[in-house]
């Protein structure tokens, strides 16, 4: 497809500016002026509309097809939340308004969204206080680790390490390292849970925290979680909960009750806000009381007369971690989702997410290796080990599914499973949609035995075939204008 820049025709413009009603053409000195013109395309509004409509049609999306991308929780995103976020009282509100004297009185509705979400998320997770500021899951992790560092610093603890199981998301070690910690990795046992014996050996007074996903990335809930928490607390370490998989346990248990001290939540996963082709998400962070005073500036606080204000007087805080109060529109959509579903609706989402994942695992276990065969939570992990013997890899099966009009599962993650295929159907998929996926997977398994060579050229139904990724990395071209600059 042509780039929008290749459609540019001098003289066209897709937007009509207002005619100036003030004296025109204020001059500024040449030395402050731009020399070379900006090359934004010159196209009409219709051309812009067609271009982006066509581009959108090249995407697979939840709105159009089954998207069981494990760990990413590609559930349906209710449309009414978009309408709520577009209300002018929210969409057109300037963030600095709430920082002006008396300005907060003109932002009470927005502050209530943040305040109520703090309360709701605390109740859902069993924590005491939340900050809405982190702008994504990984940003929440970094914020959480900074809170852990502040806690230890205040106690005079000199801690150097953060312990992370080898099944963890890559963001966990990256966030811990960004905050200045060294990483100790713990292997996974044959039953799919973290090896507690090795954890015991590695735990020492220099350990600042253990970061866990629970259920973990293999979709398994570790029944010994409270015992692990006790061990970690015994060396004055803190327990960090990666909330990526919170959608499995709503109403069933709460990280705060299990012994976790710090948690982040991916609102775009559990609370159904759109993933946007890779963001924006939101990663609020919750803590137990003893860590509350370190939360980022500012905090939304309620006065005795029930009015809300932004408290900037937080002397122990880790400081500003983003410019304002979080990805407000995302938080607003998640809030609307919680209000609509309510207590029972939230519990049901986890019930059916778990049922659907187990259904798929049971229907497919005859055809694909299940590395950890036990009841799973909201996602199940297969290995293409049997298919690899015929030369068919997880990526080949992924491309086969694309030709069937299904988005592939997450492949090659978790890294500890060879040829991993991680399937997360979510609660919003129908049995019929899952049955169709199962049929396609069975067909793939069958073809892998009978005709393995056919996979190499897949997909064939898409606008492009497999890209040359080596060339992309070797001859980096990420700017159309580079040569003409």
């Amino acid at each position, binding site marked *: 497809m042509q780039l929008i820049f290749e459609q540019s025709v001098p003289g066209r413009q897709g937007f009509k500016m207002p005619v100036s009603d003030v004296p025109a053409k204020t001059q500024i000195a040449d030395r402050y002026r731009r020399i070379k013109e900006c090359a934004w395309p010159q196209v009409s509004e219709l051309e*812009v509309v067609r271009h*982006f409509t066509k581009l959108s049609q090249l995407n697979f999306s939840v709105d159009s097809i089954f998207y069981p991308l494990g760990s990413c929780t590609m559930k349906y995103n209710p449309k009414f939340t978009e309408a709520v976020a577009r209300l002018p009282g929210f969409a057109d509100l300037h963030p600095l308004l709430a920082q002006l004297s008396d300005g907060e009185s*003109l932002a009470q509705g927005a502050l209530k969204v943040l305040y109520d979400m703090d309360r709701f998320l605390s*109740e859902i997770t069993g924590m005491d206080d939340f900050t809405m500021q982190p702008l994504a899951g990984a940003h929440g992790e970094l914020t959480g680790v900074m809170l852990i560092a502040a806690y230890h610093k205040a106690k005079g603890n000199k801690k150097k390490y953060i312990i992370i199981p080898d099944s963890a998301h890559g963001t966990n070690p990256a966030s811990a390292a960004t905050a200045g910690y060294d990483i100790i990795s713990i292997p996974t046992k044959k039953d799919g849970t973290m090896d507690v014996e090795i954890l015991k050996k590695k735990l020492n007074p220099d350990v600042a925290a253990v970061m866990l996903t629970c259920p973990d990335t293999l979709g398994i*809930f570790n029944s010994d979680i409270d015992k692990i928490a006790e061990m970690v607390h015994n060396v004055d370490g803190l327990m960090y909960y990666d909330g990526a998989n919170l959608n499995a346990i709503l109403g069933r*248990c709460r990280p705060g009750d299990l012994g976790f001290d710090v948690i982040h939540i991916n609102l775009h996963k559990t609370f159904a806000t759109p993933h*946007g082709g890779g963001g924006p998400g939101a990663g609020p962070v919750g803590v137990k009381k003893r860590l509350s005073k370190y939360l980022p500036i500012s905090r939304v606080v309620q006065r005795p007369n029930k009015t809300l204000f932004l408290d900037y007087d937080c002397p122990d805080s880790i400081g500003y971690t*983003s410019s304002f109060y979080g990805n407000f529109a995302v938080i607003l959509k998640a809030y609307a989702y919680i209000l609509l579903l309510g207590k029972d609706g939230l519990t049901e989402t986890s019930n059916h997410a778990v049922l659907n994942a187990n259904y798929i695992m049971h229907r497919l276990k005859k055809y694909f290796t299940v590395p950890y065969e036990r009841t799973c939570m909201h996602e199940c992990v297969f290995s293409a080990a049997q298919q690899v013997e015929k030369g068919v890899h997880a990526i080949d099966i992924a491309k086969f599914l694309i030709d069937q009009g299904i988005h592939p599962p997450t492949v090659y993650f978790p890294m500890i499973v060879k040829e991993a295929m991680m399937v997360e159907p979510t609660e919003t998929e129908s*049995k019929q949609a899952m049955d169709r996926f199962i049929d396609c997977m069975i067909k793939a398994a069958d073809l892998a035995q009978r005709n393995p060579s056919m996979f190499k050229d897949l997909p064939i139904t898409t606008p492009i075939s497999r890209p040359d990724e080596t060339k992309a990395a070797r001859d980096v071209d990420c700017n159309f204008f580079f040569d003409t600059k």
Partner: protein
Amino acid sequence: MNPYIANTPEETQEMLRTVGAKSIDELFGDIKPHHRPKSFNIPDGKSEFEVVKYFKRLSAQNATSLIYFLGGGYYDHYVPAAVGALISRGEFLTAYTPYQPECSQGTLQALYEYQSAICTLTQMDVANASLYEGGTALYEAAMMAVRITGRNKIIMDGGVSPIYRKILKSYTTNLDIEFQETPVVHGQSDRAQIKKILDKKTAAVILQNPNFFGAIDDHSDIIDEAHRLGALVVESVYPVSLGILKTPGEMGADIVTGEGQSLGLPLNFGGPYLGFMATKKEFVRKMPGRIVGQTVDAQGRRCFVNTLQAREQHIRREKATSNICTNVASCAVQSLIFMCLLGKEGLKELAQLNLDKAEFARLTLEKIKGIEVKRSSPTFNEFTVDLKTDASRVVAAMLKRGYAAGFPLGRYYKGMENYLLVTVTEKRTKDEILDFAKNLEEVLCN
């Protein structure tokens, strides 16, 4: 009834039989009785109609008809309707990170176009596919400079947004980074002082144009001096201003970041916004965040992929260039749609309108007795006014009259309690500006 779950009671039973479980509860057997929640006090659910009604009422508790002369890095620009219509398409909104390029060419091509649009705007070689927002993008740029130079001293100009400076400090508390801040003189960078403290330990000088006071500058001389000593320069910019102002690329800056909210994103009470980042080609492998690259498919056709992923956390884990995973792809595409609608001429017109309106406001406010409009340096669409009285009180009084009159600088700058930062975008009409001045004069007289 949960409208987002398809399974009927019959289907649920059928699936449970397949799984070999008697009940859904049985599937949660790994969660032991002593793990059960101590409480789960969430209100009962409501219908969509009831929830929407609640939000209409709630949103009405926020300002809906204020006339904004408030900016400070976040601007009340008009967003063409086509932007919202296109970005709301489910095919963009409900896709995820394009891990499978064959079925994600829409997002990938759009992000390639976005990167290109940012490069030509800033006159830089390469851009990434976005970061969270302007403040955290500046922090990422500072750390990138530390990685590239292997040095740890950072010089920060006092004209850089005070919010951004606070963010940088929070993130580097536990790291071995030395910050030196140089205060502004007459609203501009203290270039003599910056050059004086620049040395061979300096990783980066961080500058902003226009700076927080709205002053515009040409930083070429500071950049030359930094390069002579092997330091890099990070420049934070306001994208709309680049329709007229000298670009960071033309000044020789090494890393450019900024807040992209002004490129077609609503104010949204602080987010989601758009952090953009661009740099020189030689630094592309040190840049954080997703990067979309052009390549060819097996048939030699042009296509787009996430590239240089070996920098990223999902491959490199603790050795990654950043912990960033998702960015704000949807906001990046949204800004691209805006940039395409404007085109090169629209950008120039928009910048000129902002400049002209602000200049008209400046001249109008100068006529008010007893206040002083600062003239020590040229400005773009923001300028400072010395009200000779507590600016925050004046702003509070103006709010009652329907105006967000500006940002009181005393909030972040000690000794500037009487100073107001006034912003004027293309949305302000001549009449609004005249009425604003009249009201301001009345408030000051009272």
